[in-house]
Structures are given as structure tokens and as C-alpha cells.
């Protein structure tokens, strides 16, 4: 079997996900046996335009990004969005709630006019995406699962149910019983509820499930003591783009 050529690209994000991939160590070695990495920002300088699978990290925040994304789409057979920013717009879309001019000023100061940033969006708002590796940062095992699935020609098995499912299986004490507030009930599982396992909460980095019951969950947050504003705020951190689409 010819090894498929693989490339990694980054847009607005922190490159934390590429770091996760670089951290795979032995697994990366096994993986490298199966694929040929032709472009990887973290570890190589030269980039080849001929690749079958493109992993894209970061959200699209400017018009110029769109052209680059479209070129990637044309070159690659399979486009995989990795990380919160690329899959759901991520933390970048927090700014979608603010006036964009203000955002530009805070970020770029006096030069703001030169940059035509717009609402941060996931890459599937611009080009069709074949597979997603959710999370901020992504989970190594899930990344490997997605790659293995793609190599086998199957659709990766990404949960459609919320984080609570994994949280219950892990026998955690629910955040709400620890006087904390969690958006696990509307967030797509797949991370093995890792944050709650560590005694914290789910912030929603994997984005909303396909059919979230947001009203009911906001009621829950309020019932347990948040104000309406605070409850809405809980949804803003990661769900900016997904909420805005509705």
C-alpha cells in the first residue's frame, strides 16, 4: 500500500493541537509508518502541495483565510478539522459577541483598519470538511482513532451524545453536586469527560451536540443558582459560532 501523504495547516489558533500531535511519541512513530507527512508546521520547514489528507487547525477569521482554505480543499482528498477553533470556531468566536471594530482595536491597536477580520468561524463554514477531531486541545487517542479510521476507509466514530454519558461511566460526582456549573449536558462527548475526571467542570470545548436542549440546560443552570446572564455566559465561551448560526 502506498503511504498517503499528509499535511498540517494552521489558521487562527494556538497550534496547541499540532503540539498534541507532535507529543504522540511512540504512537507518532507507528503512525509515521503508515503515512508520509509532507507538511507540518511544528517540525518541518519545506511544504509539498501534493497531499491526500489535510489536517487543518485554527478558525477562519479573515477573508484572506478563505482562499487558502479553498486551495487546501482542492489539493486534498480528505480534509480533517482539528481542535475547537477549526471544528466549532472555538474560543475565537467569543469575540463574535463583541463589536468587531472594538475587537480589531484591542488586537491591532492603531493599525486596526488594515485588517479585515470578521466573525471567527469553523472551517466548515467555508469549505466542506470530511472529519472532525474536536477538543481544546484535542485528545491524542481520539486523533489516533480518527487517523486509523480514515486509513481504513471508515467514518470515525465520534459520539453524538453529551459529555454526561462519559462522566457517568467514569463515576464522577457531578459538578452540580459540588456547587459548580457545567455545560457537559449539551457538549459533545468523546474526551472521556477528562476535565470532570480531574475534579473540575466541562467548559464545552468540543462544541454543542447535534441537537442540544439548551433551554432546558439554561433552566438547570439557573435552578442551581446562576443568574440568567451568567447562564448565557456559560454558553458563550465555546458555543459562539454554533449559537450564532441558529
Amino acid at each position, binding site marked *: 500500500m502506498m503511504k498517503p501523504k499528509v499535511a498540517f495547516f494552521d489558521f487562527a489558533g494556538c497550534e496547541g493541537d499540532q503540539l498534541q500531535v507532535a507529543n504522540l511519541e511512540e504512537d507518532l512513530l507507528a503512525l509515521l509508518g503508515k503515512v508520509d507527512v509532507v507538511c507540518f508546521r511544528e517540525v518541518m520547514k519545506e511544504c509539498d502541495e501534493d497531499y491526500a489528507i489535510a489536517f487543518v487547525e485554527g478558525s477562519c477569521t479573515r477573508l484572506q483565510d478563505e482562499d487558502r482554505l479553498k486551495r487546501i480543499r482542492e489539493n486534498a482528498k480528505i480534509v480533517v478539522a482539528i481542535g475547537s477553533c477549526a471544528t466549532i470556531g472555538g474560543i475565537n468566536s467569543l469575540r463574535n459577541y463583541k463589536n468587531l471594530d472594538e475587537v480589531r482595536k484591542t488586537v491591532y491597536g492603531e493599525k486596526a483598519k488594515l485588517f479585515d477580520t470578521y466573525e471567527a468561524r469553523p472551517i466548515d463554514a467555508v469549505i466542506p470538511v470530511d472529519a472532525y477531531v474536536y477538543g481544546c486541545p484535542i485528545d491524542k487517542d481520539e486523533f489516533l482513532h480518527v487517523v486509523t479510521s480514515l486509513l481504513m476507509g471508515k467514518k470515525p466514530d465520534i459520539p453524538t451524545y453529551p459529555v454526561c454519558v462519559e462522566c*457517568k*461511566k467514569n463515576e464522577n460526582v457531578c459538578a452540580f453536586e459540588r456547587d459548580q456549573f457545567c455545560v457537559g449536558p449539551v457538549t459533545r462527548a468523546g474526551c472521556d469527560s477528562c476535565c470532570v475526571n480531574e475534579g473540575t467542570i466541562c467548559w464545552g470545548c468540543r462544541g454543542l451536540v447535534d441537537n442540544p436542549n439548551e433551554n432546558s440546560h439554561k433552566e438547570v443552570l439557573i435552578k442551581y443558582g446562576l443568574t440568567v446572564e451568567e447562564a448565557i455566559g456559560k454558553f458563550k465561551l465555546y458555543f459562539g459560532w454554533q449559537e450564532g448560526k441558529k
Partner: protein
Amino acid sequence: MRLISKKDFSNFVNALINDDSLNIVGVKAKDQKFSFGPLESAGDLRLDYDVTLLPPKKYFFPQRETLFGYSLSKGFVAEKPAETKPLILVGVHPYDIAALLHMDEVFKDTKSDPYYSERRNKSVIIGVNIQKICKNCFAPQMGTATIDEGYDLMLTDLGNRYAIDIGTLKGKNLLAKYAKNVKTAYTRDIQLVGQKEHEIYAKAQQKLDFSPDRIPGLLEKNYEEREFWEEHAEKCLACGSCVLVCPTCYCFDVKDQPNLSLNKGERIRTWDGCLLEDFAKVASGENFRATRLSRYRHRYFKKGKYLFDRFGFISCVGCGRCSSNCLPDIANPVTLFNDLYNYTLEKGVKVGPPTSPEVEIKTEGNIDFVPRVAKIVKKTPMTSLETLFEIKLEDGSELSHEPGQFVEVSVFGVGEAPISVSSPPTKKGSFELCVRRLGNVTTKLHSLNEGDLIGIRGPFGKGFNPDSLKGKDLLFIAGGLGIAPLRSLFNYVLANRKDYGKVILLYGCKEPKELLFGEEVLSLEKRDDVEFKPTVDWCPEGELWDGNIGVITTLIPQVDFDPQRTYAIVVGPPIMYKFVIADLKERDVPDDHIILSLERRMKCGVGKCGHCQINQIYVCKDGPVFNYSKIKGVPEAL
């Protein structure tokens, strides 16, 4: 009854812990709550707990377990998962013991689940009577706050000592081997135990307004009360918490997990639950329980009616875990049943007296989750989506199926899918599967070649029973892929033509190029012992078609049959049934002369995983072939 001082009891537990051949698990504190976990010292035991986060079922039916490992370097070799040590569970409350007894019934119904039963047989249950009751517990109402079976030893805290009731010889021997200073209990201690057990009943804070034996009847009356159900279900987060924490829920999912080398991996099963959105969704996109209402209602019916009809017990032991874990607070069975009871009273409807269903649980052998290896001997593309596969079992044996039965086909590393056998049992040496490319397994199957290996489990389910149709006139009605299972019976009938009366085949598909088994069926037009009528919904311009144009029901008025002598065998997509049955009824075909094959999401194929359930019916085991008279009263069936 025996007595042991608390100090000697601790020594007993420590002696068990020190025996490396055993796995000792007990109730421990976990962040202000409790859970079952491995015991390192008797001092960690908290027998004064109220309820554990998860029930002890996790030791017999774990959240994730390996069914088998596989290696593909030499064809397909399955490896059994490693043996586990005998398990001793310390501190199980009576309601959780009752729940395990329920699970035992479920896992041994028809065929026994070897993974579950092996762990159960190797375990010892040391129960403890409830000392503190959790605020949502209603075990006293369900009659499970105390129990007199299902344990090897049962403890009752009597201050500075425990009373021990010996339930089994296994328990007695364990005590004899590891415990010291065990005395026979005095009458007053026995009385004290009775008193303690009695006190628990007064402690419950949750109370049903009526006797629990009326739950099945109450539910039955209210299935269609959509307004009632919707009002409760609209808040459901589809988070599955209520079923995942339930000691009597047993639904699971099965998946393949290849490792990075791709030619090794595991087939695993994991907890699943009917409250999750995709639980009943199939590859075509159809979701048989698509609404919150239908999923929410299903759980209550499952607990209070369906399993009752099947096993004779209400499948809720009143532990209260679901209530404690539902954030919008809609999963509490006591609140729901009381609401439903009062709703019914307000409407002036009377709930009948309790009934007792006829229960007959038989166990015939073990389930084998490991497939048999089989080879694709021939691959014949039929349409752009469907391919016919001829399959031979590698060990040379016959599949020996009945027309209408299905097999679970494994594509290693990808998973399993149920596929009807589409050849008749009269075909020897190999069998045929007609497969539509839709999702993961079917797509990968299409990419395999002649000579490649796949796995086969089965045949499963109830078929058409061709003997029962002998001497009758047969009206076959097939829509689209429905021809696949139907063909196994149709060709069987042709092979035994003299045993049957008049034979009619009506076959419809969307357009001419989607016609399956084209040559084979079109050649039927030449036979004078079969009446054959094909139809297409439409024919694009330029394509050749000289048959009927119109949906399948337009063919029914075109054929002549005697409804009293005729059996109609109908297989097609779900929406077809309603219309075809209505037309058959119009022609006075009696209900019990209509035979159908139903499709539902399937995982295990053997009546365990819960996916294919329609009300109280398991399609994989009780079907897929059903007599219409048996399912017409089943609300979710058609």
C-alpha cells in the same frame, strides 16, 4: 444467623484482601459520596453508606469490556479476553442485590451471556442491610429494601457487632476459611435484625400513592397520552444519566477498535442507553425513536411494563439513582408514576387490577460473540448501491438457515451489520447476501474482493416458517431491498413448487435501474406457474420499461386472489407497510394471513443489547418475521 464483632469482621475482610487469588471490592467514600472500589484495607469500608454513585453491575457488566481480541495477520484469529479473579463484593444493599437478580434473568433469557454469567458465577456477594437511606430511595415501596435471596452473606449492623445471615454454602465456607470468632446469634440478636429491617421501611421519604403492582396497568392505559408525556419529556437533555446509573439497565453498543497497526484490535461492548438520541437510528437516517417524548416514555415503559410482560417483575428496584442524577429532575419514577396515577384519576379512567403475565424463560446454550470465518466466493454488482455476495463458511459447514432469517456480518476492524440471507436453504455449499452500501460496515464490505474473509454470526431470528405455508396460495409483495429476504422464501417455494398453491410476486422499486435480481425476476414472466408483476415509481426518459408505473399498491388491484386461501408476505421499507396492509385489508385478507419482516437498529442479534426493541418485542429474536395479527396492537411496530 451468626454474630461477629466489628473487630473480627475487619480481620475477616483484611484476611480476604491478603489472599492474592481474590479480588476484593467494597463500598468506599468518594468526594462526599460513595462508590464500589478495590479495597486495600478493611478500614476503607463504609458500610454506613446511603447509596453508591454507580451500582455494582459495573463488575459483571462493565462500562467497557473486550468481547474478543483479533489478529488479521493469518486470516482471522480471535483471542479470548484474559480471565478475571473471583470477585468478592462487600457491602451490597438489598435493592442492588434484587437488581442483580433481575439482570441474571435478562442475561440468561433464551441464550446465556457468557461474559456476564462467568463473572457472576465466580463472585461472592456480601450484602449489608441499609443503615442510612438516600433521600430519593423508594426501595421500601418496591419491596427491595430487604431481601432473603441473592446473597452469600448478609450483614446487619448491631452497634459493636454484625449479625451475619448465611445465604449459601459458598458464603458459609468463606466465613469458615477467613473469619475467626464467629458465634451463633442469640434470639434477641435475631429479633434485633428483624427490628432493624422493619425500621428501614419507615425511613423512606419517597412514597407511591398506590401499590406498585398496578404500575403495568397504569402505563398500559396511558401510552397514547402524548400531552402528559410531552410535558415531562420536553426538559429531557438526552444525557442518558438516568439509564447509565440504573442497576437494572443493560443496553449496550458493540464496536471494533483496531489498533494503529490495523491488523490487530478488539471488539468491545460499552454501556448504551435508550435515552440517547441515536439509540434507535439506522443507517438510512431513519430514527425509530426520534423524539424526546418517545425516548423518555420508552424508559418508563421498559421498567414498568415491557420487562414485566416478559419476566414478570417491575424492572425498577427503587434505588433512586436516576432521580438523583437527572439535572432537570424529570427522571424520578415515584413522581412520574404518582403524576400519571393522579392524571388518570382526574380523567376518570380506572386502572384495572394487577395482572400476572405468563413467564417462561428458557436458556439454550451460550451466546457466541465470536464470528465464524467465511469467504467471499463471488461478488456480483447489481445496481450502483447493491451488490450480491456469495459466501462460504471456511469450516465447510452449511449455514442451515430458515428463509427470512438474518446473519450478523463482520468486516473486521469496522464492525458488524445484520443482513438477511437472500438465498434459499435449498442452495447448498454457500449462501447469498444482497447488500446495500450505506454506512461503515456495508461500504467497507463493498470494497472487499472475492477471496477476502469476513465473519458470520447466526443465522438469527424467526423466519417465514415455510412449512406452515404449505398448501396455501402465496402473494409476495416486495418493495426495494425487501426483495432480499423475500427471495430466500420465494426461491424455496419455487424449489418445492408442488407443495404450494398459486404464487404471485409483486415487486416494486423506484426506477428501472434499481431493480434487484433483474434477470432472475424478469425471467419469471416466462413461467406459467408464477404470476409476476413488477412496477417502478417512475421511469426516466430514454430508459426501457414495459411494466407498470406507479407505487407498489397500484399492483394489488391488478391481481386476483382468494383472501381466505392466500397468505400475503410483505417486505419493504417501513412506510410501505401501512399502505400495503390497508389495501390488503380492503381485499378482505385476514390479519393472520399477512406476514411481514421488520427492520430495526441491531447490535447483538440475540436479544440482549436492547437496540431493536419495539415496545415489548425484540425484533432480532422474536422476529424479524412477524405475523401481522401479533404486532398490529404494538404501537411502535408499524
